[in-house]
């Protein structure tokens, strides 16, 4: 009788309290020595029953709950929901609301990518970029707080308009921030991105080929890191993004194969610069107007269904809303970008070293609040 020796496979649990899992994620690693034979993610530790719960909340009351899905980019989360309901009700907002929404969404994108870059550096082992990124993000949060009163969970985008108009002098503060911030991105590059140790650590691990990325439905910076030029802002413009002039950075594979961890990281850094460009254009397009102009007295969409997708910092965020003509949504389904990238995690991490699992997971930039909802 022949028995095939399978090697000494050990099960290693990573998480749910591991600091590098960015939340409460448990990874079940089947390790063969230092090599990961399989990495099985177990999600659901942060499940808050969002989709079922909002069936009992009226349409305006859902917005604070959408904030709590991806708390790193709450502005973009609520923007997607608000746009979906507006599309269902057929509300057209004026130019001022559109421009302010774009400014806020891009500021949210910068803040979110700063967290992504900072914590990625922290995962890999450099602490300074983490603090520097949080210092710059702080200034964005201050601007948010001044405008809507909250630092993290804004409830700023309302169905048909905005909570408040921006304060007088906000544009000057914004330009001042951008003038300060754009050189800081180059500083961050010198500090972390071009660091040869960092490059050697990330440039040849976690290769996500374009074919794998597309077949798993990966979106956002993770897909663009694999060299696929796809961005909902360009390919299916909402809020008039087609009037803006911006590039879509893709991974170029300067230090190794395309689709590595370094490519995904670098796409985010380049996107931050593009966001600065968009904000400058949006401020120039700002026209006077009333931000409460098209807020409906009673939010009661007609019976029907709608799917609206927007580009949030972590990828394509989709809201599918079914309305039965009542005051509360009949069904609300969220297509979350982090959930799809988590499904590709096992494929990418197979055959990697144990220490590279952290690098791969950090480069995906997941937020567990959005995966579990």
């Amino acid at each position, binding site marked *: 009788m022949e028995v095939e020796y399978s090697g000494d496979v050990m099960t290693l649990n990573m998480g749910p309290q591991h600091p590098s899992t960015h939340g409460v994620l448990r990874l079940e690693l089947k390790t063969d020595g230092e090599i990961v034979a399989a990495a099985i993610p177990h999600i659901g530790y942060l499940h808050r029953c969002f989709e079922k719960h909002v069936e009992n909340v009226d349409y305006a009351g859902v917005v604070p709950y959408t904030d709590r899905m991806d708390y790193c980019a709450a502005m973009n989360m609520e923007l997607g929901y608000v746009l979906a309901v507006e599309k269902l009700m057929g509300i057209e907002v004026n130019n001022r609301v559109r421009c302010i929404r774009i400014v806020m969404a891009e500021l949210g994108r910068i803040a979110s990518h700063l967290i992504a870059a900072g914590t990625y550096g922290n995962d890999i082992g450099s602490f300074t970029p983490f603090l520097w990124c949080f210092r710059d993000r702080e200034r964005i949060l201050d601007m948010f707080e001044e405008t809507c009163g909250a630092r993290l969970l804004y409830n700023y985008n309302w169905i048909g308009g905005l909570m408040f108009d921006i304060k007088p002098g906000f544009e000057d503060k914004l330009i001042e921030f951008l003038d300060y911030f754009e050189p800081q991105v180059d500083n961050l590059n010198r500090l972390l991105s*071009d660091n040869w*140790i960092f490059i050697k650590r990330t440039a040849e691990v976690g290769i996500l080929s374009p074919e794998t990325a597309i077949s798993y439905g990966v979106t956002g910076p993770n897909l663009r890191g694999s060299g696929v030029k796809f961005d909902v802002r360009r390919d299916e413009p909402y809020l008039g993004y087609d009037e803006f002039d911006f590039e879509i950075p893709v991974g170029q594979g300067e230090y190794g194969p395309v689709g590595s961890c370094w490519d995904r990281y670098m796409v985010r850094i380049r996107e931050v610069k593009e966001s600065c460009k968009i904000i400058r254009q949006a401020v120039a397009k700002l026209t006077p107007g009333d931000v409460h102009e098209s807020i409906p007295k009673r939010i009661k969409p007609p019976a029907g269904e709608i799917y609206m997708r927007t580009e949030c910092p972590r990828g394509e965020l989709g809201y599918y809303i079914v309305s039965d003509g009542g005051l509360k949504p009949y069904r609300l389904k969220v297509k979350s970008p982090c959930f799809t990238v988590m499904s590709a995690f096992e494929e990418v991490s197979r055959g990697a070293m144990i220490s590279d699992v952290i690098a791969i997971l950090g480069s995906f930039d997941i937020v567990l609040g959005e995966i579990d909802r």
Partner: protein
Amino acid sequence: MWNYFRDIGLGIVTVLTSMGVAWRHLFTRSVTLQYPTEKWTMPERSRMRLFNKIEDCIGCGQCARACPTDCITIQTEKRGKDEPEVFASDGTQIKLRTYVFDIDMALCCYCSLCTFPCPTHCLVMTPEYEYSVYDKLDHIYRFAKEKPLSGKAQKPHSEKTESHGQ
């Protein structure tokens, strides 16, 4: 062999570059704030602790309907015809007597949706942020001052909270 030494050389050069960036940072102003001694001035739109000026409240209950977490409990009764008329500070007649107006700040999600429909602008979010307590029930703020006349039993909010199970 050549790559090995090239990696070491590039590693040293790039680390020195990043240390140069960090070195210049030593001479900039500190961005941190020593919290309990120094305090941040909150912007006027800050959304922190809820406050209700009960003298102006007409008991319409629009805030309780707007709240997505149902943290506001209001119970009212009609004022009798022989009672003197009461007016809010903006001149609105208060036809209802609000004998329960409880806000459970432990449930509040600070979305500020309750403050906008208020017709007399008596419910506001204040910039005050230091109000931690030892007991969770201390987070229930009871704003109502009047007592019911019709003899209805006043149901305290704490019973309701406890019946939910914690």
